[in-house]
């Protein structure tokens, strides 16, 4: 009987708290949204399942949770005993040490086509303008009482780049990583809901009808030289971004060089899928009730929504500003694609543009600031990391 009651005390039911239950329900909601509504399924399914796994109450004395890392214990007799960490803690090490996000950037580089950006370089500035969402949100987080490092990690949500957000949060504010990751990916899935009203509010019908001339053909030499040169230019000015941009442009070079097609194919398929599974699952498992269900998480979600809105507005307004000086006008809707949720925000631009003129094809033009935004958000993360460390 004693053994049986002892066993009962070690079950999850005995030590389940209300917080654990709420987080398990949240995890199931994420999985449901991903499967039923197709909201970022490649991330929300692993994150949701990770949240369910990570919130099963742990058995005291057993290394099971993400936070049960390896340790060395000093006994009373002076002996030192090594205690291995949990499996989840070793998987989570890729997040904590900032390993997974650069590997994802490698895969992203191997699947990105920069030719739309190369054919119309002035659209790169729209990717820069959208980063105003990062820095204004950073300021807003300080105003709300977060410290500088936490504010930097929260601000990068406005970059609309999941790996970048996770990378910077792991470096600056690991205690907020779960909330920041979930906010970033949730709002990326909601880009088709958040952006269109702001785009229509800030543009006139005439502006939305602007047609842009077709992009020029880009030569193979340009596409091969670009990743190396772009890496040197960006990281010599902003060295904090060297890891993320190095992997991004390395992946792109693997793709464009045409002599490493096997490596590029692996990077953009198997490798990125493996890392995405491990990243999503371990981030989800880290969202335990005591770290996630806090008033701070609500503030982070609020600031995250604001950052996306400001980034969208920043890109659109900067496009309108550029039009004051350009003879060949830019459709200001394209500025919204500076929010680097690739390719969703470019698709939103296409959709909103076609609502005014079904024969106006803005998608390829929007891809230019879209990919420029990826570079811009990585630079913003590098700047914040180097200043706030």
């Amino acid at each position, binding site marked *: 009987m004693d053994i049986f009651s002892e066993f009962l005390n070690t079950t999850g039911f005995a030590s389940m708290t209300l917080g654990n239950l709420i987080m398990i329900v949240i995890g199931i909601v994420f999985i449901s949204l991903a499967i039923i509504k197709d909201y970022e399924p490649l991330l929300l399914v692993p994150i949701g399942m990770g949240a369910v796994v990570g919130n099963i109450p742990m058995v005291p004395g057993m290394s099971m949770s993400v936070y049960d890392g390896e340790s060395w214990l000093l006994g009373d007799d002076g002996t030192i005993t090594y205690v291995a960490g949990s499996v989840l803690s070793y998987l989570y090490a890729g997040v904590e040490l900032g390993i997974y996000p650069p590997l994802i950037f490698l895969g992203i580089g191997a699947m990105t086509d920069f030719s739309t950006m190369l054919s119309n*370089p002035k659209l790169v500035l729209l990717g820069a303008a959208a980063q105003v969402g990062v820095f204004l949100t950073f300021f807003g987080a300080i105003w709300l009482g977060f410290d500088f490092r936490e504010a930097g990690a929260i601000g990068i949500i406005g970059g609309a780049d999941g790996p970048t957000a996770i990378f910077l949060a792991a470096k600056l504010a690991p205690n907020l990583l779960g909330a920041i990751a979930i906010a970033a990916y949730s709002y990326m899935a909601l880009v088709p809901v958040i952006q269109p009203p702001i785009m229509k509010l800030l543009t006139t019908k005439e502006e939305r009808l602007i047609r842009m001339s077709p992009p020029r053909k880009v030569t193979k030499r340009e596409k091969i030289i670009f990743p190396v040169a772009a890496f040197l230019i960006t990281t010599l000015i902003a060295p904090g971004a060297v890891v993320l941009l190095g992997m991004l442009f390395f992946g792109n070079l693997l793709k464009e060089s045409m002599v490493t097609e096997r490596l590029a194919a692996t990077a953009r398929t198997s490798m990125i899928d493996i890392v995405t599974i491990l990243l999503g699952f371990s981030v989800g498992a880290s969202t335990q009730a005591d770290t996630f269900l806090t008033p701070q998480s609500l503030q982070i979600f609020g600031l995250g929504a604001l950052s996306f809105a400001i980034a969208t507005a920043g890109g659109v307004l900067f496009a309108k500003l550029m039009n004051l000086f350009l003879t060949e006008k830019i459709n200001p809707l394209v500025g919204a694609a500076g929010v680097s949720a690739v390719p969703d925000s470019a698709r939103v631009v296409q959709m909103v543009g076609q609502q005014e003129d079904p024969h106006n094809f803005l998608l390829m033009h929007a891809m230019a600031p879209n990919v420029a935004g990826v570079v811009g958000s990585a630079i913003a993360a590098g700047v914040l990391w180097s200043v706030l460390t």
Partner: protein
Amino acid sequence: MAPLVQPVLAQAELEISQPQGLADGATIAIVGLLIVFVVLIFLSLFIATLPKVLGLLEHVLPESEEHHSIAHEEQDEDAELELLAAIGFVLHTEFQRQVTTGSGGKS
């Protein structure tokens, strides 16, 4: 006396640090955004200049056909054939629809 002074000083320090924190935060935000702009302006200028430089280089080192560029062009040809097939299908479907509508109107 000392215990009465200390809380007032602590409060004064708090009142100074919040505006100072906001000022420092604003400075970091402005400088950070400027750095992002500077980097991407340089990148944009490089991209704009690259075709001109490569145009000059073309006279010295013309872009030649190599095995991997042939493979890439073969992939491009396949993509063009697929595109033509898709366009052909759409045209055929549209013609069929017009023929069907035309015969319905006559009766």
